[in-house]
Structures are given as structure tokens and as C-alpha cells.
């Protein structure tokens, strides 16, 4: 602390890259071990809901685009605009009230019921560990606890994907290369799958990295409401107790998550779109 600012910054960066985040002043544990505990839970929730939202979002956008200017299109548009305008907490609260309170089909919070024995941690992700340990009760219980928060997360975030898919389908539907594809005698199914949907997915891919970041940060609200022991809740507590030594590593981890998602999206982008190459060899346009 007596060192000049640039030395302090050097120590900070050194510790950042070696993963030495120091000790949580509230719990006395190292922050790295706490993040190691919370991160897999958040990943489980985020990845699961991300898969749901991509499937639902693309399907709805595709439907709206292919039924442009019909009743179905209008309804699909209302659905995704409303989805997009719903505050995260409203979705979570309604989910809890309806599916955990009035119609108690899902539990309202937590990761698994206390009555089951949790599986041996291998990867840290609860569901995968349960599957690896062939622990069916734990797997089912974990899944049951996962569905409600994941659905709430997915509902709030799928709107943008639908909108992007719809508008890129509108751009591509009447384009000349689709006409050519029909003219050369491809079946309607093939035209739709290879020429329309694939083009629409290219736009959705670059967008999905942004959405992933949103889902990641939405965990702040969802994990708090669903008592999900993840990074979002950890961050919330850190902010609430002004625990800055903990907050900085969490912001770093979240930012890393967004950067990794962007990187994955860029790679997927180049796989989907042959016009874009990774290296710039073979005359590919970079």
C-alpha cells in the first residue's frame, strides 16, 4: 500500500494473471476457491437457459419471417417484443408465484432438494456430476430445480434473437440466390434449410455472444430470487456489503465470460459462413 500507484497496478495485474485474488474479508476463504465453487453453478444455469433461448428464439423468428405479414407473424412479433420488454424480476417473480406457489410443480429455489445425497464433484457442474456418478435421483432433482430459473432467464432474453432471425429472413427470402436455388430444382425443404435458415443463422450467431453476456449478467437478479448459489448471487452480496476485493475478480470473471463467448461466436461465424475465413489464406476474405 505504500508503493506508488504503478507498482500497485503491477502487483494487481500479476495477481490477476496468476489467479491470486486474495482473501475474502467476510468469509476468510480465498476468493479463488469461492469463485471455483460458484462459477460451475452459474455456468450450469446459463448454458442450459442459453440452449433453450436459442432454440425458442430461432424457431419463433423463423416462423415469423416465413409467415411475414400474417396473423402468425404479428403474434410472434408481439411475443418477442413483450419478452424483450419484460423486466428480469417480473419473469422470475411470476414464475415463482405461478409454478412454485399456485401450481406447485417446481421448487421455488435452491439447486437440489436436501433429501438427496449430492454427487461427487468431478467437473463441479451439478447435473454432469450426477450423470457421471449415475446418481439418478440427484440428476432429476437438479433438473427440476434448474427448469424454472432457466426458463425465466430464457424468456427475458430470447426476443432479440427472434428479431434478428426474422429480419435476416426477410432480407434473404426474396433475394436472387434463393430464387436461383428454387430455379435449379431444389426441393422447398432444401431451399429453406440450406439457403434461408442458414443465412439467417449467421446473423443470429454474432448476436448470440451479446445475448450470452446478457444472460450471464441477468443471473444477478435470477440467482438472488431463486436462491441459486452462483456467481450472480455472490456478486450481489459483494456489492451489497461493499466488498470490493471480491467484486473486482467477479467483474473480471464476467468480462472473461463475455470475451470467450465473443470468441466462440466468431469461430462459429466463420464455420457457418464460407465467405469469412479465419486465417486469410486461400483467398478467403477476412
Amino acid at each position: 500500500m505504500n508503493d506508488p500507484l504503478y507498482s500497485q497496478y503491477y502487483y494487481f495485474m500479476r495477481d490477476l494473471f496468476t489467479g491470486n485474488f486474495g482473501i475474502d474479508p467476510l468469509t476468510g476463504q480465498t476468493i479463488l476457491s469461492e469463485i471455483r465453487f460458484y462459477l460451475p453453478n452459474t455456468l450450469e444455469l446459463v448454458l442450459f437457459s442459453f440452449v433453450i433461448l436459442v432454440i425458442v428464439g430461432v424457431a419463433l423468428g423463423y416462423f415469423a419471417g416465413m409467415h411475414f405479414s400474417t396473423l402468425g407473424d404479428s403474434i410472434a412479433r408481439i411475443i418477442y417484443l413483450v419478452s424483450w420488454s419484460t423486466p428480469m424480476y417480473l419473469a422470475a417473480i411470476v414464475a415463482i408465484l405461478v409454478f412454485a406457489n399456485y401450481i406447485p410443480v417446481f421448487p421455488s429455489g435452491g439447486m437440489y432438494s436436501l433429501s438427496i445425497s449430492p454427487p461427487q464433484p468431478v467437473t463441479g457442474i451439478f447435473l454432469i456430476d450426477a450423470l457421471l456418478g449415475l446418481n439418478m435421483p440427484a440428476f432429476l432433482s437438479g433438473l427440476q430445480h434448474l427448469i424454472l430459473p432457466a426458463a425465466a432467464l430464457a424468456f427475458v432474453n430470447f426476443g432479440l434473437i427472434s428479431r434478428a432471425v426474422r429480419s435476416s429472413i426477410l432480407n434473404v427470402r426474396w433475394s436472387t440466390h434463393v430464387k436461383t436455388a428454387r430455379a435449379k430444382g431444389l426441393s422447398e425443404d432444401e431451399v429453406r434449410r440450406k439457403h434461408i435458415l442458414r443465412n439467417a443463422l449467421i446473423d443470429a450467431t454474432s448476436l448470440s455472444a451479446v445475448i450470452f453476456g446478457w444472460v450471464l449478467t441477468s443471473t444477478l437478479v435470477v440467482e438472488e430470487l431463486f436462491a441459486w448459489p452462483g456467481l450472480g448471487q455472490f456478486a450481489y452480496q459483494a456489492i451489497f456489503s461493499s466488498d470490493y476485493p471480491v467484486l473486482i475478480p467477479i467483474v473480471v470473471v464476467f468480462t472473461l465470460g463475455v470475451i470467450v463467448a465473443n470468441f466462440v461466436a466468431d469461430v462459429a461465424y466463420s464455420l457457418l459462413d464460407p465467405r469469412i475465413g479465419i486465417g486469410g489464406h486461400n483467398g478467403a476474405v477476412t
Partner: protein
Amino acid sequence: MILESESVVTTAQSLKFRQLVLSNRLSTFGLVIVIISVSLAAAFTIFGERITPYSPYALNLQESNLPPSFAHFFGTDFQGRDIFSRVIAALPIDLGLPIAIVLLSSVVGIFLGMAAGYLGGIVDEIIMRITDLFLAFPTIIMVLAVAATLGAGLVNAMLAFVFVWWPPYVRLVRGGVLEVVAEDFISISKALNSSFTHIILKGILPNILPAVLTYATLDIGTALLEVSILGFLGIGIPPNTPELGIMVGSISYGLYTYPWQALFPAFVTMLLVVGFSFLGEGAREASDVKVRPYILFEGRVFGKAPEILKQELAKQRTPQQQASN
């Protein structure tokens, strides 16, 4: 379903922007919500507690946790304050804060984006790398961190938002400027020895403003969501402020017993955001040159084609086209 006829397309292009937006009933609905809520907010700012049925601030512990009724439309909260009155009192904050955020961000964005796009070179490089850096941060986490550091207060919350909110505007403006600068009329203007400020203010600015305005309309909704999430988490915005997110957040423990205390403010939040989204979406669609000719199909359910276009369509309808439809 393809608009082959040139004249229909030209008619659609020649329609006024306002007509295009309002031809979509969803956008009109959005506009109505926006107008009502903004005027309510303005009325509350001017007249204060005189326009609310009860005082939004005064405690009345004898009437705490009442369910919704004709006396209290949205019920009362745990301190006996009328939730309906508090929602109205929250409007100036929940609309004012996002509008201020978006306005300031777009000013920053226009300034930096024009500098990057028009000056180019090293200035462009520096501005865009900084913008990319800021884009990498997850918005709400960064806002929370900044707001928690600055301390509670509406101005601080606004600053925290603007701190992370401007990068998309820079990219938007820069892209627009690059397109406009390549146009002939700018080179002609330069050849005529127009001053720098003249080119910027008369040549470039009017051409990028519509895109910024459209994006900003949509963005106010997003900003409103994030502001209310900040309130919900109880950070940045001072506690006990009538703010929709705070009203929802203050209930988390009595949720099963008094659900209306959280649901009504949350639904109002949604309604406000829906208003801005519908309006912004309609404006975006109407300003999209590619989609524009198609948005005025007769067949659309939630919108009516303006009369002039209907006549044009009827004129163009040949038997062959009817068969293909």
C-alpha cells in the same frame, strides 16, 4: 408475395415517416403509452402530490399491506403507502433517468463517432479501440460496480449508466458517417470550399440523426429496464425513493403473502418498456429501406395500409399476380 411493381414501391417510399410508423397499430399503441406516461410524469413533476389519490410518501401503518380495492387500486405496501400513488410518483424518475442516460450517451456518441468517422486515421483508431474496450464489459455489472463506488444518488446512478452506455452510439454514428462521407454531395461541398463546421452540421449530422433517434427510442426501454434492475438490487438509487424497481425489490420476503406489492410496479415497468419498444420497433422498420416497401402489405393484421397505397395496389393487381398470390 413479392412487390414487383415499381410504382407501389415508390408510393411506399414517398409516404411520410410518420404515416409509415402510425400505419402499424402496434407502434400507435406504443406511442399512446409513451404519451400517457410522459404526460403523467410531467403532471406529477409540476403539481406534485395534488394529482395522486394519496400521498406517495406519508406512512400510514394502520392501512399497511391492504389488497387492491377501489380505494387503493394497487393496494398498499408494508408501510401503508398507496402503491398506485407511488407508481405515479415513480414515473418522473423511471422515465427521466433513462431519457437523460440515452440523451447524454447519444451526445457522447455523436461527438466521438463523428470525430472517428470524419477525421479517420489515428483518431479513429484510438476512439474505436477504447469503444471496443468498453463494449467488452457486461453492462449491468459495470453499472453496479460504478454506482456502488460513487454512492447512492440519482445523479450518480445516471453517471454510472452513461459511463457504460455510450459505446454502441459511437459505433452507430461512425458507421453512418463513413457511409455519408463517401457520398458525392460531401465531396462537392468540399470542392465548393465549405467550412468544416458547415459540412459537419449541414452535411453529415442531418443524415445520421434519424438512425440515432430510432436506436435511441428503442434504447430508452432498455435503459428503463436496467435502471429498474439497479433499483431492484437496491444499489445506486437511494432507498425509499419511489422507483419501480425498488418497490418490487422491497417485497422479496413477503412475496407469497402480498404478491400485488411486487406485481403491479413490475407490470407497470413492463408496460412502459413495451411502449418504447413498440414505438421504436415501428420507427426502425419504417426507416429500413429494405423492408419498407414490404411493410405496407394489405394483408398485415396489426396495421392498415394508408388509402393512397391501397389504391395503388388495387391498380396494380393483374390477374397473373392474383394467381401467384
